[in-house]
């Protein structure tokens, strides 16, 4: 039902929302001087005004500046996690799919990793190595490697029977060439779909970790941290809580819409996708 309603949203909306946040995170700071850590003690907890468009928090820091800086953190966690997890996962999947005796072993290890909750792993990691961006990206990468490995592995096995792959073998292509020229290009659409969902999930997990205090440490303007801090002032200063929440919700919504539209496109072209598993990950 919800799915049908979502279908009606024009395809530009998802991309538009993501583009908006990219703009806020990277283009806006070029033109406007943003400082998420500067405090204006006199102005603390002041409502949205001409001077502070989104108001200020309990230390008198501009919410607009903090949300823009938070967008940067969220997008970078999402992007780095996705790129690293995709690179490692696709490699594992390709090796598993092509080297028969390694395939079973690699996939069992992958299954083991998949059974382990990513947030829990991140908490352990933070407990051992302290809070920080790298710890979070590392933990999330480990969490999402299996997703990419599984999809790649499955598609490689499926594509080995595909007409054009058998044709490539019969023509005389070497195995590396078959993988790089014939299998990988046909995997990319479904992997892109997967990547948008992994990116969205990584952003949610990072925010959740910030919220429970296991993510980035409080002065850093992570959206999760901001939601956590804003709770205390919910009754007197709604903007401190509401704007970070809206930011998280809109970015995730945008990414999911974008992924959905890409997956529609890909399906329309007749290729298989991992869209079903992707929805499972997000929900």
């Amino acid at each position: 039902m919800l799915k049908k309603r979502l279908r009606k949203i024009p395809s530009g909306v998802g991309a538009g929302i993501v583009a908006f946040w990219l703009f806020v995170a990277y283009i806006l700071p070029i033109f406007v001087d943003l400082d998420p850590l500067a405090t204006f003690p006199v102005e603390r907890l002041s409502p949205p005004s001409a001077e502070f468009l989104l108001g200020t928090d309990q230390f008198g820091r501009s919410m607009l500046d903090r949300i823009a800086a938070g967008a940067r953190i969220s997008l970078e966690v999402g992007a780095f996690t996705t790129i690293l997890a995709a690179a490692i996962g696709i490699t594992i999947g390709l090796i598993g799919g092509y080297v028969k005796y390694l395939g079973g072993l690699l996939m069992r290890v992958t299954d083991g990793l998949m059974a382990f909750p990513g947030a829990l792993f991140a908490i352990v990691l933070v407990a051992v190595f302290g809070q920080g961006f790298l710890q979070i990206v590392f933990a999330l990468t480990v969490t999402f490697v299996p997703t990419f490995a599984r999809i790649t592995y499955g598609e490689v096995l499926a594509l080995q029977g595909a007409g054009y792959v058998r044709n490539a073998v019969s023509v005389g292509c070497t195995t590396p060439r078959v993988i790089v020229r014939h299998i990988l290009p046909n995997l990319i659409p479904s992997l892109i779909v997967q990547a948008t969902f992994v990116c969205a999930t990584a952003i949610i997990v990072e925010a959740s970790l910030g919220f429970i205090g296991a993510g980035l440490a409080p002065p850093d303007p992570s959206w999760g941290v901001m939601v956590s801090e804003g709770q205390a002032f919910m009754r007197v200063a709604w903007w401190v809580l509401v704007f970070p929440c809206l930011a998280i919700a809109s970015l995730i919504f945008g990414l999911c819409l974008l992924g959905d539209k890409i997956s529609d496109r890909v399906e329309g072209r007749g290729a298989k996708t991992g869209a079903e598993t992707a929805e499972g990950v997000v929900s």
Partner: protein
Amino acid sequence: MTPTTDNTLPVAATPLLKVEDLEMKFPLHSALLRRTIGWIQAVRGVSFSISPGESLGIVGESGCGKSTLAETVVRLTTPTGGSIVFNGRDVTAAAGGDLRRLRRDVQMVFQDPFQSLNPRMTVRQLIREPMQVHRIGTVEEQQSRVAELCDAVGIDRRLIDRRPTTFSGGQRQRIAIARALAPKPKLLVLDEPVSALDTSVQAQILNLLNELRARMGISYIFIGHDLAVVRQVCDRIGVMYLGKLVELGESETLLEAPRHPYTQTLLSAVKALEADGSIDLTENLPSSGEVPSPKNPPSGCGFRTRCAYATDECASDSPELLDIGSLQEVACHFPLKLTDGSSRK
């Protein structure tokens, strides 16, 4: 013309391809423990040879093992028995460099042109790739050969940078043929190359194949289930039933005077369908009974369960493919007499 014990027809001194007792079986695994509980005997001892420039057709019903035979001959799979000798070299278990050298000389055209062309490559890349893979010629030579091949198969040169998804089935099969011809193979294995195409397009592709063979002197193995199609392209036809060749001979002789009861059955199906203009072996045949499963083929002659002439001998002894004169071989204890009116036109 006395019967000989030699299983092959008198052909040129050095056949291009000589296949002997080729066998291909696939294990059947139990659901839980993956134990081997049986075998699918797709190809059960097939022997034939092809001279340079010759065109051999293999016909049979679906499931008779003809596609497996094609895949084994091009060595997409390794046979479980018998031997394949190509150009004097045993390639039965070739691997690595030997296998790649074989791939250059033996190319394959697949049945479904909608599946067999990588949708992410352009026509130019598709046709050039075999030359790149086998390091044939310089970049310029490869490019000019791509253009030549486009002309040869009737693909507009201006469409060379398009992807196969923008072409029709017939055009895609032309592209697939150009790709297969690119490394100048000596043998082209065509696995039902026209059965996925419309009838009008079929004729064009068959004409193209005949024209190319006349011009380039390549040998063909043409797998098909439509006798009318196969006879248009092939010098000789082998009839396959349940993983074995039951009859092999010159196309016209074999079609005019079949000596194996199965071939006769096929041809009577032809007569029934002649008005159609197409002879499709996937249609129900007038012979009685079901095709036995390749999991559990009958003892002796594979066809005996459906054969009107079967005796006890057919159940106990498997007939070998024997030369019976007029360049024809038949695997039957009681081949039909030439005077047998029912088999004559």
